[in-house]
């Protein structure tokens, strides 16, 4: 067996042995390689290919606990040296960056020009007017990781997720091929959109090396309107009223610490300083009595739950009440009674259910299975689920007993794509849905 360290040292300046701190789901990789250029990254992957090594891309590693453990991991390709802003064309509202750039640093640089990449994935506190995003060090991740996991936050309602803002990408495939798609202009339909294909692919198709995004101006003003609702029904009504109001909230979030607890509903309004006041007044009227307004978000805003187990529930936004009821029923029916905290983008149809302690393996499996069954009501157009439940992270034993990703209608096509892009199955094998 060829010495992986020596092999990669020939093509990459910064290579070291894997250490306990590098462990992924408890397994320490043999080598960590830190390419400083895309060309070097290409050489690393080419060399790894020649030795049948399994690759795991890593930025700052904030999302490595998401998904399923890789079946093999010989080399971590650490992107933190690929951390430049390549070009910020402020006049065009476009930025091109390397994938290892921390999101917080990008936000700061863009903010100094009055612009933003409108993503506020968990870990970031949303920017106030004219202020850079402020987040606990290392929790916001890198550009590459955010794209690879499709991470988004409260403002997904208005701005979408990474794939919606991505306009160009450069990737390195498992065999070292460097390929680009898209470009640096927002309007562009030339060729296939590999950027979208790679978005949310959990490192299983290749290494994301560079990305270009469309930007937005930082809003002049922002305000939060919060109302506390006694029941799921009331919360759903408040969210519905907010969305139908034509007041264009940028986010419609809820927070419910436990089943039966009151639900906080919070709307974010962004816009011009004068107009905001009028919209705030109207929004308060729309969402019901007791609504209060302020310039600061609630302390739970945009943060992931602290629990050891987190599930992501995606659904049609009109189904909010059913979803909350389904969660409560499944929690009450579990072998050990669960008390999931619910938080997230109710208006956009994406919520996080967080469980304080790691539930017993059977308990989590039973909860997830029942929740999936309850939510998968055909909405009238065939065998489309219309909702999904995925386990984002959980302690090892519980995760091992549950179907983390759930059923995927496109598993066959996904596997065909995987076989084309990574025939050797060496890119993050086993991390993803469909057995990929």
């Amino acid at each position, binding site marked *: 067996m060829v010495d992986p360290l020596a092999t990669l040292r020939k093509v990459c300046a910064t290579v070291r042995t894997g250490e306990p701190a590098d462990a992924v789901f408890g397994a320490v990789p043999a080598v960590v390689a830190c390419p400083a250029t895309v060309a070097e990254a290409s050489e690393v992957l080419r060399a790894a290919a020649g030795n049948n090594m399994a690759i795991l891309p890593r930025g700052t590693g904030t999302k490595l606990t998401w998904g399923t453990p890789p079946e093999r991991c010989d080399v971590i390709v650490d992107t933190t040296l690929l951390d430049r802003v390549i070009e910020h064309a402020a006049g065009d509202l476009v930025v091109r960056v390397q994938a290892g750039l921390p999101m917080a640093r990008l936000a700061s640089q863009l903010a100094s020009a009055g612009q933003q990449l409108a993503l506020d994935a968990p870990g970031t506190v949303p920017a106030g007017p004219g202020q850079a995003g402020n987040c606990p060090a290392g929790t916001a991740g890198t550009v590459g990781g955010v794209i690879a996991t499709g991470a988004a936050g409260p403002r997904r309602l208005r701005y979408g997720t990474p794939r919606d803002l991505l306009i160009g990408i450069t990737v390195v495939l498992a065999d070292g091929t460097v390929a680009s798609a898209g470009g640096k202009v927002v309007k562009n*339909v030339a*060729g296939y*959109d590999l950027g*979208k294909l790679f978005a949310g692919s959990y490192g299983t198709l290749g290494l994301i090396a560079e990305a270009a995004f469309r930007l937005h101006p930082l809003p002049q003003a922002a305000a939060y309107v919060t109302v506390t609702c006694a029941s799921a029904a009331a919360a759903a009504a408040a969210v519905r009223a907010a969305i139908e109001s*034509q007041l264009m909230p940028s986010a419609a979030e809820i927070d419910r610490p436990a089943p039966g607890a009151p639900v906080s509903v919070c709307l974010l309004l962004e816009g011009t300083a004068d107009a905001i006041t009028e919209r705030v007044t109207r929004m308060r009227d729309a969402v019901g009595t007791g609504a209060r307004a302020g310039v600061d978000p609630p302390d739970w805003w945009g943060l992931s739950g602290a629990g050891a187990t987190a599930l992501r529930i995606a659904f049609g936004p009109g189904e909010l009440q059913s979803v909350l009821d389904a969660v409560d029923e499944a929690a009450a029916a579990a072998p050990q009674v669960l008390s999931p905290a619910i938080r997230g983008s109710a208006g956009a149809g*994406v919520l996080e259910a967080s469980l304080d302690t790691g539930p017993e393996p059977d308990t989590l499996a039973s909860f997830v299975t029942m929740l999936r069954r309850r939510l998968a009501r055909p909405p009238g157009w*065939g065998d489309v689920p*219309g909702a999904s439940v995925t386990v984002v992270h959980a302690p090892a034993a519980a995760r091992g007993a549950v179907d983390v990703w759930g059923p995927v209608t*496109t598993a066959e096509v996904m596997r065909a794509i995987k076989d*084309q892009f990574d025939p050797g199955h060496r890119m993050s094998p086993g991390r993803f849905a469909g057995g990929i």
Partner: protein
Amino acid sequence: MSEQGGAAALAPRLAEIAGHENVITDRRRLRTYECDGLTSHRCTPAIAVLPETAEQVAAIIRACTRAGVPYVARGSGTGLSGGALPSADGVLVVTAKMRRVIDVDPANRRAVVEPGVTNLAVSKAAEPFGYFYAPDPSSQVVCSVGGNVAENSGGAHCLKYGFTVHHILALQVALPSGSLVWIGDGTGAAPGYDLLGAFVGSEGTLGIVTKIVVRLTRLPETVRCLLAAFASTEAGGGAVSAIIGAGVLPAAIEMMDALAIEAAEAAVACRYPEGAGAVLIVELDGPAAEVEREYARVRALCEAAGSTEIRVADDPGERAAIWKGRRAAFAAVGRISPAYIVQDGVVPRTALPEVLRKISKLSSEEGIRVANVFHAGDGNLHPLVLFDDRRPGESERAERLSGAILDVCIENGGSITGEHGVGVDKSRYMTKMFGPADLDTMQLLRCAFDPAGLCNPGKVFPTPRLCGEVPGIGRGVHPLVASGQADQF
């Protein structure tokens, strides 16, 4: 093998699948489908079929695949890049009979439609509930949502609202493999690869879409539309830069130059300000309070940029009047020129002034007129290259100028197509924008979906990739080049 025989021999099987009244073999009737909106490229298909259900579409694909016969899908045939150009030896699958609006679900902000439904029909179905379908190509009265999915269509309001891909929540697709699958689950957040993102804009090369779940958008409370005249496109461009620089994001910013205005006037008597070197149409929408403030800002910025006349729409009728000229622009140039080529280049918005100057210079050098209509907010140009194909050499000069304009776009970091697609029209320019590794890697996707290469072949990519080959290693002559089916650039 006689491919023509191969396709025609499918007639009985296709009749079994779709009903014999939905199978067209008569040569004269087939001529109706010989081209889409790109009339310079014509090819009569061997046979055409008009399925009525998704299962029929899948069965048609299976029949074609068994016979080794290529197939091409066609919606309303309004595409401008030849994406629906038939194969002479193939089957044309026309979705015109699949035009049901199956469901409108405002609570979940989505609707389910069949691919033959027109773009505007979706908005009309959603309107009673207070919603609309945001992507609005100029051809929206006629163009099909299925076609919009294939091309990732934009439209004037994509500056604010995005493109088709931002408004698709699920697709039922008849795959080249013969199966019918749902991609996406209607939430926009389904686990797995973003196959929706890969499929939308793939120009009909990865399968045929049979049902579409679209995202519905809440109708804006207020819409404000203004028309501003300027002495030149430079001055108009200055206003655009100022508007964007002020942090305003209008729903649309369109510009037309003097020649485009002349054409529009001749066609629809839109009565734009006389003598204007350029007109800007700016539309703002959203909450009333925001729109009023943005409108005041935009108006002031237009005046500061030297606008010679500003008109504001006070009602939907006036708004329609302002848009009339812009919407008619492409077809309108037919009034002032016997023939024309529509281009669809994109440049970074800040490069617009320089690029327009270059186009003007190239136009004088070739002695070929160019009318400019463009989405000023996002740098998407539609130069209309006007020529008289009866005069010797003029077609060639127009083509050359057209290509030169795309070169300028690429040199300035732009794209060869912002919304019309590559199709057959621009596949030869793909190598100017992408390297061999880029095109090879994109085609891995095609190999995954359509290894047999029968689904809308010959579109988008100049040289088809043989699935399973290792790129970059040349051995002798590419078999497709040897057989005369492809050229290598």
